[in-house]
């Protein structure tokens, strides 16, 4: 079983704190990465709010889990696709998102951007190319 590497695409479509989907999706991502699978994340619709900068949750009494996204590079999660239209529809730009990086061991551990802006046509082909699509 360990020799099989599949591409897992996690599609995150909901805002981070109104429902538990984002938090529990992240838990699956971390387990999936430990299985040494090809793990990729996608953020679309309200899911783009999950990776916005400066999240502050003290007043709602919930744990701010956004720093975990910053650690995913260490779990070999390199690609985080963000839907361009979803950002625009919500008045956001890539500058409103966290600066997420991964280190490329084949390029002298150079830091590279994890976030890749994609349009809806590209999303369609990314979903087609993935072996497993988990939608949260």
């Amino acid at each position: 079983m360990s020799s099989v590497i599949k591409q897992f695409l996690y599609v995150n479509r909901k805002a981070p704190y109104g429902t538990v989907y984002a938090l529990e999706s992240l838990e699956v991502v971390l387990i999936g990465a430990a299985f040494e699978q090809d793990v990729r994340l996608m953020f679309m619709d309200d899911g783009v709010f999950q990776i916005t900068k400066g999240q502050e949750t003290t007043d709602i009494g919930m744990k701010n889990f956004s720093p975990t996204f910053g650690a995913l590079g260490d779990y070999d999660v390199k690609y985080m696709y963000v839907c361009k239209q979803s950002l625009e529809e919500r008045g956001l730009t890539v500058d409103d998102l966290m600066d997420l990086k991964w280190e490329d061991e084949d390029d002298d551990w150079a830091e590279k951007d994890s976030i890749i802006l994609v349009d809806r046509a590209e999303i369609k082909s990314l979903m087609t190319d993935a072996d497993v699509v988990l939608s949260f």
Partner: protein
Amino acid sequence: MKYTIQINEGPYTHQASDSAYNFTKAVLEKGYEVFRVFFYHDGVNNATRLTTPPQDDRNVVNRWSELAAAHDLDLVVCVAAAQRRGIADAEESQRNGKDADNLAPGFRISGLGQLIEGGIISDRLVVFGD
């Protein structure tokens, strides 16, 4: 063709569990294999044997238990999601110092690795949610 089914919503509020049940039954009737059914998020609420719907309604929980018994299905409930929502078998209940357990027959509690394994081993992972 080998399937793993993921269910992300609880019974009655959402149709997800009904749709997943009908899909799973259809897969089995066609002679395909269901490697695993994995319950996540509020989907873990499909696994409490304390569910008591009105007599003239379907019993979503018992229906899963019966399907599992008839086809030797592997019904897995995510342990972390279950702990948050108060779903426990006898062992989990004791381990967490609780005074009761409620896991329905045919279900077992395990970790998220079981979902990932389902994705790796199966030809299709089909998610039922909101």
